[in-house]
């Protein structure tokens, strides 16, 4: 690294607070760190750790009710923490710039890409139209967009998520700032796209010597890409130091916990192999699903997929957005009639069920959704949510219902006191536990988990995965686990299908697929798992074995 003597950014004893009505609560407590030129510093923490607030304070973009209480933010030798907005505006983009989190919402939908990149050039200095156009094309080429002339004339909705993030990076680097703040730049992207975007940021840093403050919740990403790592918890720095040092010998207990919970860093112990001869809980043969497009054509979302899941085991369906994995599991859960092929679960042939049989079938197969914020009715108490499936079938006496709700809540680790609360008073992990309890209260045989841990913080994710493994062991459940995160899959699945553009490109046991993938695409996916630079932090998680036959 070309570290000069004077750091680009130095934050000293920063305190940030937010006001809620009449209360001010401090969310960043005495945070100090520095970023040198050409260095990538990762700010790592879970939601609520104050990492985003810290980053926003640096660029002077705290929310309206936020305030820097004390401390100094020294950018290129000048303390900007007390600057007015008008003064800050002169340095935003020119000296420090931001790559925002969500590429979908961060571009103006009614302006072309070219206009939006040109805007940053014209704000910070007079530049002729022709010169600006030339620079725009140059920048778009630089961030690796194909056909930059065409892209400059397109609108954001015509670009994919990864392309939009490239445009945002082009805007961020347009004026060659000394510091780029990247706030979760790849969280919303597929893993292979994520890798390319991070490579791009890396290349640009090397070329221009720009410093990067990388805000991320993903320790794997931080491990791969940063020189220094700062671990935040509850607005306080738990630990900071050279990335290699922190990962090799974490000093704080919290960092150790984060490391052991991060699926991409923990060395996965292989699960015990499935003994042959287990009866199949779920068999899918040659599943095909077409959708009618408004244009009158049909779109084949799923093309000839087959797999078998033995009872009490976990089958993972892996793929990126648009790969057909959601379509597959919706067909399994009986929300769509397949166009072709057969899905057999127990005695049911899912494709040929009438609406009456379909309801009986629901007792056997339950779906847990990705987003615990959307899958629970905001107006019902936790008790009512968990109880609801019991009301849909033959009447169960009230006391019996209460008993079963309490039992299942206890089983998934929900304290009884939470039963009378509404979902908005629960944390993400608790909500997902409620969703799991609702799925299990009917005692199903197959549980389909649609990215069930993707929206959760890593320690919560680890707890939910532990819970799922425990439930499988005790109740003999069969899981179909949909995920884009191969690191998680390696940890909990027995068999795996890799989908790409609706086709099954790989199928086999996790061992087989991870060690000898048959398709290039699968190998690319495996390579893109972040954290490869540090294959195992020396703390490894205990492995799970398949559940018993019941």
């Amino acid at each position, binding site marked *: 690294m070309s570290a000069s003597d004077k750091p680009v950014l130095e934050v000293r004893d920063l305190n940030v607070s*937010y006001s809620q*009505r009449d209360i001010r609560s401090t969310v960043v407590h005495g945070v100090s760190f520095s970023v040198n030129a050409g260095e990538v510093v990762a700010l790592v923490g879970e939601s609520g750790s104050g990492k985003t607030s810290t980053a926003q304070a640096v660029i002077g973009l705290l929310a309206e009710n936020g305030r820097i209480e004390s401390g100094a933010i020294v950018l290129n030798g000048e303390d900007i923490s007390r600057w007015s907005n008008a003064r800050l505006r002169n340095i935003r983009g020119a000296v420090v710039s931001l790559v925002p989190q969500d590429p979908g919402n961060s571009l103006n939908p009614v302006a072309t890409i070219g206009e939006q990149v040109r805007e940053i050039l014209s704000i910070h200095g007079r530049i002729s139209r022709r010169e600006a156009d030339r620079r725009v094309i140059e920048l778009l080429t630089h961030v690796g967009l194909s056909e930059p002339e065409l892209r400059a004339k397109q609108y954001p909705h015509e670009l994919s998520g990864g392309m939009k993030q490239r445009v945002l990076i082009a805007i961020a680097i347009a004026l060659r700032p000394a510091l780029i703040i990247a706030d979760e730049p790849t969280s919303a992207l597929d893993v292979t796209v994520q890798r390319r975007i991070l490579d791009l940021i890396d290349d640009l840093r090397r070329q221009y010597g720009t410093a990067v403050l990388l805000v991320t919740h993903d320790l794997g990403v931080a491990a791969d890409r940063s020189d220094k790592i700062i671990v935040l918890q509850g607005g306080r720095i738990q630990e900071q130091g050279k990335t290699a040092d922190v990962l090799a010998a974490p000093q704080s207990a919290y960092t150790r916990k984060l490391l052991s919970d991060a699926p991409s860093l923990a060395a996965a112990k292989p699960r015990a192999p499935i003994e042959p001869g287990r009866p199949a809980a779920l068999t899918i043969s040659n599943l095909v699903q077409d959708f009618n497009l408004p244009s009158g054509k049909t779109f084949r979302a799923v093309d000839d997929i087959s797999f078998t899941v033995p009872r009490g085991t976990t089958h993972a369906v892996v793929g990126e957005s648009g790969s057909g994995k959601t379509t597959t599991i919706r067909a399994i859960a009986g929300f769509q009639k397949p166009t072709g092929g057969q899905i057999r679960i127990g005695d049911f042939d899912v494709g040929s069920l009438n609406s009456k049989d379909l309801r009986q079938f*629901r007792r056997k197969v339950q*779906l847990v959704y990705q987003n615990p914020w*959307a899958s629970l009715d905001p107006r019902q108490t936790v008790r009512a949510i968990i109880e609801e499936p019991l009301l849909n079938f033959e009447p169960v006496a009230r006391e019996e219902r209460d008993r079963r709700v309490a039992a299942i809540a206890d089983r998934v680790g929900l304290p009884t006191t939470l039963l009378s609360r509404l979902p908005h008073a629960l944390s993400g*992990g*608790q909500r997902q536990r409620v969703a799991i309890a609702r799925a299990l209260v009917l005692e199903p045989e197959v549980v389909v988990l649609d990215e069930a841990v993707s929206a959760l913080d890593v320690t919560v994710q680890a707890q939910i995965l532990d819970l799922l493994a425990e439930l499988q062991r005790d109740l003999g459940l069969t899981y179909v686990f949909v995920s884009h995160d191969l690191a998680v899959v390696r940890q909990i699945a027995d068999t795996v299908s890799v989908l790409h553009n609706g086709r099954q490109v790989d199928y086999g046991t996790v061992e087989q697929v991870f060690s000898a993938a048959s398709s290039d695409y699968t190998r690319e996916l495996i390579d893109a798992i972040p954290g490869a630079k540090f294959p195992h932090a020396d703390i490894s998680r205990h492995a799970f074995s398949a559940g018993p036959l019941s």
Partner: protein
Amino acid sequence: MTTADTFSDLDTGKRSKRAGTSRSLASILLNFPYGLALAWLVIATVLLWTLVPGLFTAYDPLQGVPGGQLKAPSAAHLLGTDSLGRDLFSRIVHGAVHSLSGAIAAVGVGLVVGTGLGLFAGSVRGRVDEIIMRFVDVLLSIPTLLLSLSIIILLGFGTINAAIAVGATAIAGFARLMRSEVVRVRNAEFVEAAFGSGGTFGKVLWRHILPNSLTSVVAYTAVQFGWAILQISTLGFLGYGAPPPTPEWGLLIAEGRNYLATAWWLTAAPGLVVVAVVLSANRISQSIGKTNGRSA
């Protein structure tokens, strides 16, 4: 739970925490929603007028005092008297029951029929939805006054018929709003989850779709209430509402307009009462919309 769970707990806790002890008297006075309190006061007063009009005025609303015609407001007659010597304040107080019950009946018709249509259309979708919503479009395309006048001519004059006529014009608005809410809620994951746990269509509709769709409909109902009072008064003014000598507010305005030059209070007073009630209803509706927005 563990660390991470506690964080998010903190987060939600912060949001829902009410400023308790630290809130000073000054900030209570400063933040008190005076406008909203006034709006509730107006509505409460008018409701009391309908329930116990005798408490507010001793005069008979229908029986005039001979020789006391067109008196200016005074201590004896707060708002003066009309051309037949009847106390205007008494007529306004006693008229509240006609205007209010008319408005409630009208909103009731619009609410029940409109939300029913919207709920059905939004949850069934497909061709039925198309037919219902095109019918609603037709209703929307007819000017409201023209529509209510035609209905009154079909049904005949009278307070109830006027209410039905006004209610019919409100159906379209309720149906559109309800349908859009239902469509929004229907696509929510928790609704699919409810079907996924074996719920029948009717059960899911009743347990999830209806309660989650109603919030903005309730706010809209309050707006419609004010608007219905205005419409009923309009019909009364035009002579299509309650027949004289009923002290209906629109009729009061109409009767007073002949004396605008000499006794302006005869039109101004009932007019201002209508304005106050309509504005209050709007203000209350706004506050309902806001709290719902916050809790959602």
